């Protein structure tokens, strides 16, 4: 415990000093652009603000954290970013994940390209995110910040774990709703699934998942574990909450009748460590706000 306290104090002091560090101390640092959202999160988390990133309108609505400064240029869609704009901005380094490997030939004509894994089939995303954050820190000369961020995240998760210990006897369904009839479940191989494990909670979704989230499933699949908590990750499409109120099957679920449903604000489904922390924090707050915990 003492060790945790010490490192936390050191860490907080460091974190609060971060924004005030003089620009010159990073003068040699390369300017970066990111195509992948998870790597945008990771870069911001270690204090490296990219010059350009993709789909920022959507990022600010869905991923929310970390806050993207207004100086970051929006390159457009992740799947087809504007290479012309990127060419004019001319960063020193472009970050992509395996998803966007097909863009490499075009991107390499602009700047050096660094591929860091964010999601890979059959690999747990949390350790992968740790690995990529460290690798990014090393590449940008921010290894200390990266190590500190990893530590800070572990610390947050440990805190959340003890706060959630009282509900740990129940499994958790973590889902997102497509409409009022279908959900997508986050299995053991999703970031949310990884975080559940680290929080000492069981995942209610035991089926295999694909790319860390299953194809849309009917609400009736939630019947499998009547004792579970249902955690709904935002955003909620309009009309869905009314649709749920009118949904006879939903209302018949023991979890719903007994008030074990938590709605969370939007979180990036394919995020890295900042998303993991945001999920743990929102989940803890959500559970604690329930009348009987």
């Amino acid at each position, binding site marked *: 415990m003492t060790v945790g306290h010490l490192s936390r104090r050191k860490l907080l002091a460091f974190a609060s000093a971060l924004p005030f560090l003089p620009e010159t101390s990073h003068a040699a640092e390369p300017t970066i652009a990111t195509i992948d959202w998870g790597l945008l999160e990771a870069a911001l988390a270690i204090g490296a603000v990219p010059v350009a990133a993709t789909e920022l309108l*959507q990022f600010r609505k*869905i991923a929310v954290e970390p806050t993207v400064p207004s100086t970051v*240029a*929006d*390159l*457009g*869609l992740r*799947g*087809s*970013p*504007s*290479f*012309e*704009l990127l*060419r*004019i*901005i001319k960063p020193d380094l472009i970050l992509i994940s*395996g*998803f966007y490997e*097909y*863009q490499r*030939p*075009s991107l390499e*004509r602009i700047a050096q390209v660094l591929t860091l894994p964010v999601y890979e*089939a059959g690999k747990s995303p949390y350790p992968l995110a740790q690995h990529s954050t460290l690798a990014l820190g090393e590449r940008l000369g921010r290894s200390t910040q990266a190590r500190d961020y990893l530590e800070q995240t572990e610390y947050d998760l440990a805190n959340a774990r003890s706060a959630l210990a009282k509900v740990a006897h129940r499994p958790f369904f973590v889902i*997102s709703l*497509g*409409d009022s*009839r*279908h959900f*997508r479940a986050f299995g053991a191989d999703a970031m949310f699934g990884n975080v559940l494990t680290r929080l000492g909670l069981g995942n209610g979704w035991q*089926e*295999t*998942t*694909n*790319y860390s*989230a*299953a*194809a*849309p*499933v*009917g*609400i*009736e*699949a939630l*019947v499998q574990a*009547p004792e579970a908590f249902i955690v709904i990750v935002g955003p909620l*499409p*309009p*009309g869905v909450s*009314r649709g749920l109120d*009118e*949904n*006879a*099957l*939903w209302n*018949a679920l*023991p979890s719903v009748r007994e008030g074990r449903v938590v709605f969370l604000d939007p979180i990036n*489904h394919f995020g890295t460590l900042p998303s993991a922390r945001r999920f743990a924090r929102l989940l803890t707050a959500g559970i604690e706000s329930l009348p009987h915990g």
Partner: protein
Amino acid sequence: MADRSLLPAVFWCLLALGAALLFGLRLAELWPAGVADTDGVDLSRVILIYSFLPRAAVAIVAGAALGLSGLLLQRILRNPLAEPSTLGISASAQLAMATATIYAPALMEFSIGTVAFAGGIAAVALILALTWRRGLEPVAVVLAGMMVALTANSLSAALILANGDYLFSLFIWGGGSLVQQGWGPTISIGLRLVLGLAAAGLVLRPLAILGLDDQSARNLGVAVHASRFAVITLAVWIATTVTAEVGIIGFIGLAAPALATLSGARSLRQKLIATPLTGAILLWLTDGLVQLFSGPEGERVPTGAATALLGGPLLLWLLPRLKMFEWPSVSASTAAVNRAPRPWLVIMLIVLSMLLATGVALLVGIGPQGWQIASGEAFNDLLDWRAPRVAVAAATGGMLGAAGVVIQRVAANPLASPEILGVGAGAGAGMALALVFGATLGFQLAASAAGALTVLGVILWIGARAGFGPERLLFAGIAMNALCSAVLTAMIALGNQQSYTLLRWLSGSTNDAVAFDGLISVVGLVLLTGPLFLATRWLDLLPLGSPTARALGLHVGYSRLVVIVLAALMTALTANYVGPLSFVGLIAPHLARLLGLGRARQQLAGAIALGALLMVLSDWLSRMVAFPYQLPLGIFASLIGGPYLIYLLGKGVQRHG
């Protein structure tokens, strides 16, 4: 003869029995055998009552409702191809819902059904307004409908791409799902179905008369326009309710009336009974099969797309077997257009506009400081990016235009095009299968070419067996298109890396084009369209039909094969770069013809230049309009070409009085 006429009835009874069997199997599995959980709530009974039973019920009523809607529309518009999907009603309802979801969520909270109806009725109003001067002539109506459907689909895709969690939305968007958790949708659709049937029964006589032409109907004292609008509104209301409750269920509205007719329903009264029944059986059986093959981790194919997997082959199989259609031929009145007095001047003008568009696309763009015209070093720099894109766009546009001319001439059908006959989708299905095996680019190209060739071959073979009846050919094409699209949807629904590749491919983009791609497509254009110019005599003779062409000394089978292979190769190559949905292959040949380029050589040259012009413009607009967000290429091709095509169609008729 009596036993022969019973055959269809036996066939449908067997299908219904199959659906009931699937239903029974699941029922036996679910039957609550006194299993109660600790809370004392019988959860399997909850599933039975609120999920399983309403799902079967909604399949039956939605299938019947779509069949009825299709029947009414076909009757009123005297058009065997009219139905909620071909007229763009479902797509527009979907677009209205997607738009409201993003820009006016309060409307969606208020009433999803009303939003969907507004979208559907707007589509029909637009189509009627566009084709009114043509007297709602079937070809014009279906052309307008397909334009509306395509544009609405592209716009929905753009909205989803620019605003949302697209993988998830696209799954639901790509095909309706019948998953139920209550009786609301069943009651809502069932109510419209009963009202629709009652209303149709009431206006049975006027409805029968409306099947005649306007003059006869007016002579018999029917208020033609008022009754038409009333029945159309009813059909739209039924169809959009289905879209609002369960999403887009393709194919039933087209297939059910056709299959009912093919199975021997003759009088309108018989059809009013047989069509909803056929639709209900089709959808119930499809959904039963979807559930049979679904695992605990979800369904592999959305029911809305799976209808094509079942209905498509069924329609293809029945099509050549039976005589059908009392409607006027869809190709009856599109033939005559004035020839341009100086065709090569027209072609020169098109080429000039194309060069102008190319210049704009190379020079003008948006940068961090807004609009700018590139010059000097910046121009050289940006040329690296712009030149390959413009080259790919122009070459693919040209190839699609040429492929369209070939297909329209070989099929002797004004509505035939690589997009509508599903040749592009066939290329996609071929590529999808290649992707499963993790193939290299060369293998993917070969597979997509094989896919395109297979589709085109099958359709033309079916068409040839049926004596190239234009309706039959289109039916076969739409069925193949739906079939290949269903394969694509199923692949995308798998949600893996290949799905991502396919999604990107479907939306069509020249964004990733590098110099090599530009080179390949220009070489492709030259190599594949070059031989066509040597074969323009074939293209002039083939539309006249085999006997005439043969009498004029043409080796029909051989010449047909050569041009078809060329068209399939061009479609596959272009689909690889710009996706299957550009519609340039439909629009460019028509525009060329309507501008007075009648002979094969002139039409070919005109269509290539027009295709290139359309595609370069669309590509440039798709990059500029929402900069830096890039929109799908197909939107602008149909937005520019579609209305102009409809305008020209109207003009063509007026000129001839």
